[in-house]
């Protein structure tokens, strides 16, 4: 079987080739992880909030059909128009229909991972519309013709000098100016005109409330608000799992979202929309695009609890060191490595292996998704569906066989210890040994664990030594 030309590991090679940049990327995300920790530690009720959020999402997913109908009724009552889309194509068609029937030429968008997932921009541009992404990071990647590399920080992989160059080319900022404040001001001035000239605004949705038929959108820049308060038409696109049952549930989620995402106590703007503005239109598009199928999976349905905060990415040692583009999915990182194979296991078979199973993602997830368990479960699934690349498959067979034969295993260990000590470098570090590529192998211990354990057990014969205490306990 020939898998997609490049898996995560091969693409990560490109990213890590520039070591200084890879380290900078790692550090930038770890800084956000630390900000998140400070926020979490400042709330004594943090763990109960996570547990509550988990229960609310579990209830929502169980009762999704009823809640969606309740949402539809309430939203319609409030004056919104509700549309349903089975897949990305239908979603894109609905958006284009709304825009064309209102003679819209110019659209401003605020960040929406769903529209990224559906490749909406491309669809609208093909039809001759002008689409401007207004989140600064999202606009930077749009100008550079790249996909976002992070769901909350779309341009986290780009250096300020590169942004300066991009702005120089597109909006004529002075060449060589890479000052973030200057560049942000320039973008503000340019995008202000786009907001004022837009005929419609497209947004994502952070939370939708079944009880009231409202939607909540969270931003720091204020772009979603400008984009939906100037033009009279607002199209909000949401995955069907974005629902919350009650208005009061927002208290739990608005406390968790920004603290987990960027280490802020709340986003700058948390906007609640119930119906259109006076004389305007509000369209809500409910999109399935594979979600109902994931919901039916016993193993993976909890991945739909995700509120897209990005905390699992910020903490992931593999994501931080390999960059979002190595995943080749709209949502990268741990949660993306669960969602993507559900969409196409063959294409994304390498993603569940882009994980050390350290469990850090599970620890920070604000809705307590058991991310690393699901990643492990996907590995099994991929193996059972015979999607493993041959090298990995036979290496696994070989290792499995070796582990079933303790004497041979001991012999292999002995050989490995000797070989690593005495073999010349060229015999260890070559293309045939994947473990020697990109890393130094450890200096082997003089004797095996079993030999050390035997010594330890015989030493514990002396009753009063502290060592024997330790041995007995373990």
């Amino acid at each position, binding site marked *: 079987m020939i898998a997609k030309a490049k898996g995560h590991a091969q693409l990560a090679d490109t990213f890590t080739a520039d070591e200084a940049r890879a380290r900078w990327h790692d550090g*930038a995300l770890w800084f*956000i992880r630390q900000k998140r920790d400070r926020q979490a530690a400042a709330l*004594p*009720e943090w763990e*109960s909030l996570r*547990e509550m959020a988990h*229960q609310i999402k579990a*209830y929502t997913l*169980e*009762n*999704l*059909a009823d809640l*969606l109908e309740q949402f539809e009724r309430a939203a319609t009552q*409030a004056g919104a128009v509700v549309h*349903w*889309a089975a897949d990305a194509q*239908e979603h894109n068609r*609905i958006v284009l229909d709304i825009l064309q029937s209102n003679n819209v030429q110019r659209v401003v968008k605020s960040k929406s991972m769903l529209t990224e997932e559906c490749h909406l921009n491309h669809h609208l541009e093909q039809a001759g519309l002008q689409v401007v992404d*207004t*989140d*600064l*990071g999202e606009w*930077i990647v749009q100008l550079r013709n790249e996909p976002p590399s992070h769901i909350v920080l779309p341009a986290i992989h*780009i250096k*300020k000098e590169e*942004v300066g160059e991009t702005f120089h080319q597109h909006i004529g900022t002075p060449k060589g100016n890479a000052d*973030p*404040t200057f560049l*942000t001001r320039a973008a*503000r001035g340019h995008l202000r005109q786009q907001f*004022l000239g837009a005929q419609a605004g497209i947004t994502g949705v952070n939370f939708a409330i079944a009880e009231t038929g409202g939607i909540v959108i969270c931003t*720091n*820049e*204020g*772009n979603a*608000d*400008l984009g939906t*308060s*100037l033009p009279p038409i607002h199209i909000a696109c949401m995955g069907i799992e974005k629902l919350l*049952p*009650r*208005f*009061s549930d927002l*208290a739990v989620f608005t406390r968790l979202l920004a603290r987990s995402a*960027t280490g*802020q*106590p*709340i*986003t*700058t*703007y*948390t*906007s*609640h929309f*119930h*119906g259109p*503005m006076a004389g305007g239109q509000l369209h809500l598009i*409910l999109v*399935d695009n594979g979600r*109902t199928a994931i919901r039916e999976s016993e193993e993976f349905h909890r991945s739909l609890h995700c509120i897209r905060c990005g905390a699992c990415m910020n903490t992931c040692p593999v994501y931080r060191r390999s960059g979002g583009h190595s995943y080749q999915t709209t949502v990268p990182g741990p949660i993306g490595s669960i969602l993507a194979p559900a969409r196409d296991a063959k294409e994304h078979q390498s993603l569940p292996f882009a994980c050390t199973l350290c469990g850090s993602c599970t620890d920070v997830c604000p809705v307590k998704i058991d991310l690393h368990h699901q990643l492990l479960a996907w590995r099994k699934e991929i193996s059972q569906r015979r999607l493993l690349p041959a090298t990995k498959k036979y290496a696994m067979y070989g290792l499995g066989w070796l582990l079933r034969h303790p004497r041979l295993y001991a012999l292999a260990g002995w050989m490995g210890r000797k070989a690593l000590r005495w073999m010349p470098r060229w015999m260890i570090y070559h293309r045939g040994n994947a473990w020697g590529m990109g890393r130094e192998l450890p200096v082997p211990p003089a004797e095996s664990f079993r030999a050390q354990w035997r010594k330890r057990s015989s030493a514990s014969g002396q009753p009063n030594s502290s060592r024997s205490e330790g041995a007995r306990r373990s």
Partner: protein
Amino acid sequence: MSDASRQQILQQLRRRLPTACSLPETLDGDWIRYPDLVEQLGRMVTSVGGSFQQLPTVQDVWQRLQSFPEVQSAQRVVSLVDGIPGNVDLAHTADPHLLEDVDFLISSGEIAVAENGAVWVTDQQPKHRVVYFINQYLVFVIPRSRIVATMHDAYRILLQRPLPGFGCFVSGPSKTADIEQSLVIGAHGCRSLQMYVIDG
């Protein structure tokens, strides 16, 4: 077409019967309490990039504001606060685009949340909600009695009122860190935010 998808989605969602799963109470809980709400609010507003001051009355706030060069040179000021004069008549502004060059918005807030510095504003009072986002400088004047500790308290109050078509929690000035994680205050919304807590 959309209707067929609606049926299909709902049908597929109903294929799996719900298991017993209950919703937790989200308004009452053992939430954090602050010994001094004003002090906590001030700390949070400052930490999210705003400035904060306590003054006795609206008149004191207006006096203080007039000492700022930005206010002295402001061409267009929208005031939603009694006792502070503005020079833009929102009620007679037909199109929100005409608010493009508003320098200052001086607004009250219905609720202020001490845990995160957020202020709840709605489209009930100003005719155009864009006024909260299109201004260059935002000033909040908040009576002390409107401060609550957490978001749970805030939503409890909101549930007792009719829902506005639009409502927003605003916490600090607009900001972005999308260029190399350097925090820049003043993204698309206001470039500075001042909060004054007054008696009452």
